[in-house]
């Protein structure tokens, strides 16, 4: 299972990097979204993987997953959304002001 998660994170990071390196704003925003998936999963996985052991205190629980990375990632997901919103609106603003959606704000022939 660990290998699978490592592969998933690798693929997400690769797609994120590739998209972030594109020349237009929209793919870059998608790339950042992919990168935040990868980073969130990575941070979450730092608490190691466990199945069927949610960190909710219960009498019959066999064990608990590490709650610390979970708390960290929960806020990261929400802030990641806020940042995506900020960046995409920035892209809209750039398009409105510059008349194109190139990341460098260039008018291309």
């Amino acid at each position, binding site marked *: 299972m660990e290998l699978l998660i490592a592969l998933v994170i690798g693929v997400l990071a690769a*797609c994120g990097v590739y998209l972030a390196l594109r020349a237009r704003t929209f793919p870059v925003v998608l790339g950042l979204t992919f990168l935040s998936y990868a980073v969130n999963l990575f941070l979450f996985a730092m608490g190691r993987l466990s199945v069927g052991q949610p960190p909710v205190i219960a009498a019959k629980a066999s064990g608990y997953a590490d709650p610390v990375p979970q708390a960290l990632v929960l806020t990261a997901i929400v802030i990641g959304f806020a940042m995506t919103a900020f960046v995409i609106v920035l892209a809209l603003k750039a398009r409105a002001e510059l008349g194109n959606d190139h990341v460098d704000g260039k008018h291309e022939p």
Partner: protein
Amino acid sequence: MSLPSVILMPLFGAALAAVLSQVSRALAAWAAAAATLASLAFLLPLAREPFAGGTVIQRLAWLPSAGLDLAFRLDGLGLLFALLILGIGLLVVLYARYYLSEQDRLGRFYAYLLVFMSAMLGIVLAENLIQLLIFWELTSLSSFLLVGYWYRREEARNGARMALTVTGAGGLALLGGFLLLGQIAGSYELSVILKSGDAVRAHPLYPPMLVLVLLGAFTKSAQFPFHFWLPNAMAAPTPASAYLHSATMVKAGIFLLARLFPTLSGTPEWAWLVGGTGFVTLLLGAFISLFQHDLKGLLAYSTISHLGLIALLFGIGTPLAAVAGVFHIINHATFKASLFMAAGVIDHEAGSRDMRRVNGLWKYMPYTGALAMVASAAMAGVPLLNGFLSKEMFFAEAFGAATQLHLGWWLPAGVTLAGVFAVAYSLRFIHDVFFNGEPVGLSKTPHEPPRWMKVPIEALVVMCLLVGVFPAQTVEPILAAASAAVLQGPLPDHDLAIWHGFSPALWMSAIALLGGALVYMGRRPLFAWHDRYADRLEARRLYDALLGGAFALAGWLTGWLDTGSLQRLLAVVIGSALLLGAAGFVGSGAPLTGGRALLPVDAVSGLAALGLMAAAVGAAALHRQRLIALILTGAVGLVVALAFVKFSAPDLALTQLAVEMVAVVLLLLALYFLPQHTPAETAALPRVGHMALAVAAGGGAAALTWAVLTRPYDSIAGYFLANSIPGGGGANVVNVILVDFRGFDTLGEISVLALAGLGVYAMLERLRLDGPDHDAEGRPWDADVHPAIMAALGRLLLPLALLVSAFVFLRGHNWPGGGFIAGLIAAAALIVQYLANGVAWSRERLPWNLQRLIGLGLSAAALTGLTSLALGYPFLTSAFGHFRWPVVGEFELASAMVFDGGVYLVVVGATLLILVHLGALHRLERLPSRAKSPADTAKAVR
């Protein structure tokens, strides 16, 4: 605790003077003087102890857990310097009041000056080396401001920058030296360091540490080859020069030599580095000084020379030489400060400082001339003045060191030669300015300065005379106290008499006086020779070349890395991160796979992971079809939520699910206003390069994850799991961490969320974008933007969704849920209303001000924290209790619920703010109030 007050008083005074200068100039001057006097008033009661040979140490606990205290030390050396700083500071405050003209902002000058005074006091009263360094840097900064006071003049800006560059670089070296010294001695406290001299000197790291510390001291005290900044800093207003460049700032380096004398001195390295540098500086400064045409330039090089003299004395290293060094510190401060002030008076009243034009002033200002003459004679070392006494001791020490160390004749000859030049330039200062014919082309007729402007000069000149004639009665107590502190041991026998008999030192003095007069008389050929060759010898050239080189290198590097292309810059960043990461992997030699037991793979997980990877690769491959790429991205997000479900993170899964929906709606809305397709990229080569970089980055991320996941680890989770119910009153540990244990972090995070929401709102405020009328395939969009079925269904769903949201919120403390998730659900439910019915319709029925909602949420969260503070608990301590209601039964209430409620409101407010205003961009959805704003009308007219 009065030592910290000594340092704080000028700082208060700085603010006070700056404010009061708005009212009147005199008031600002009074405030500055009062602050200085207050500082003195705190200092003087403590002075008894250092005079008795003791040391006052006062501490304030700062970070007790890290063993860090703010520690202050007052011994003889500190007292001497503090008295110089405050005494001369007071005179400078008075002097500056008359020196600066009506156009100059006096408040700003006093503020800088007092900040500098405070920093300088901080250096001399520090017990801890790191604390000393902080004040050290503060003097560099405030001197930068003072030198650049007339910032409209280019020379002031350049001089300020040069002083900051040189002393700042020295400060960096000093930091390294202090860190090494602290490591070697095992403490940063001076009390320990001063006692561990033997251990420090025997340590293998002693030489590099010494070099670094000396670099700091030499740059600050303008020692060769770093001396060039001082003449260029003469662009400062003269009161600042009189203060910084005679008595205080440049003495900070000397202070450091004296302070660390017991620990660092007594080795050949010390003798050669400090003594050698001092010797070269002494000679060079004295020589160049003679050829300066600018009055202040002459004084600046003379200061360099005298600083070299003191450094040479400390380099010689005998106890008597150290006493002579301390003595010369006092004497130089008095006569040089008065000379700077006299030069300022001349500049002020004659309109020029050029000695080729300012001549024959005796007729116009005999009183100032007489004062300057006495001070100048002290500088030259004429008997019956203070300069003579310390110079005599210096000559004796130089002669003694040469005989003892069999150095031959060059050391006594060299210092006598420096003495010759000192006499010559002192003569020039007097003869050129006050005699030597008539003034040449001055813009105004010189006259005596205002009465009070002369008082500071008089005070200092009287001191020169008193110390010169009655040394034992005046200066001896403080000299003894300071020297004892420098030596940290018994004082050597020293005799401050004027007449010591026909010693070698007396002959050296006589030679210097006679030779100086001869050199001055034969100056014309010397000047001619100097004008032809000296320009090539300027150390400033080297600095300019180095600085130019650094700028060129930085410019080239920036130009190479940043061509104005985000893609290129990003590729460089990612590539560098990859290289560094790979270097870490390879360098460590650790195996990639650790020994932790792995979880088995089941078929469903494998399939889901395959689906996720396919969707991700698909999105990357098809990214030019933006809608398809977006849908695939949403699919990936959903599988990520499933992964959270699988690996025991229900809270994360719920959050991811809710965020995913909101985010896809957001991106869809944005996509409407952007091109539907990405144009093909022309060049294939960069694309292949990017692919390679992406594959490498992904491989690195996967390898890193694998390496971590296969290793065992220690976690702090145990604490949270054990204390969640007893300490936070909740069973859902993730939620308890968010709203209780780490509530302060969460408060920061919702603040970020609120700011992002407000930022989006601000950017959208004036935005005008028109989306297309047709979709990508050319079909027109349906004119009916709010289909009735959706509107009806949405209205039905709303109460249900809000109920779910309330339920998720309430259970959050004990089961998966909480403010973040509930907020997102409520936001999603409300957004459906906006989508189905339009912004205007929804706005009418939900007339909340979303910014206020965010503010309300933030305040609720912050107030919960403040309430616990008001009740005497640390910020954000939570309280909870169990209550019983009829029908409902027993239930629990925690103050963390209020905090979580704040989180809820911020999430709802920020999410809605972003989406609603993005939606309102559409021409059919524009809010009526927006169209009516004056800016829009103006735009429409245009």
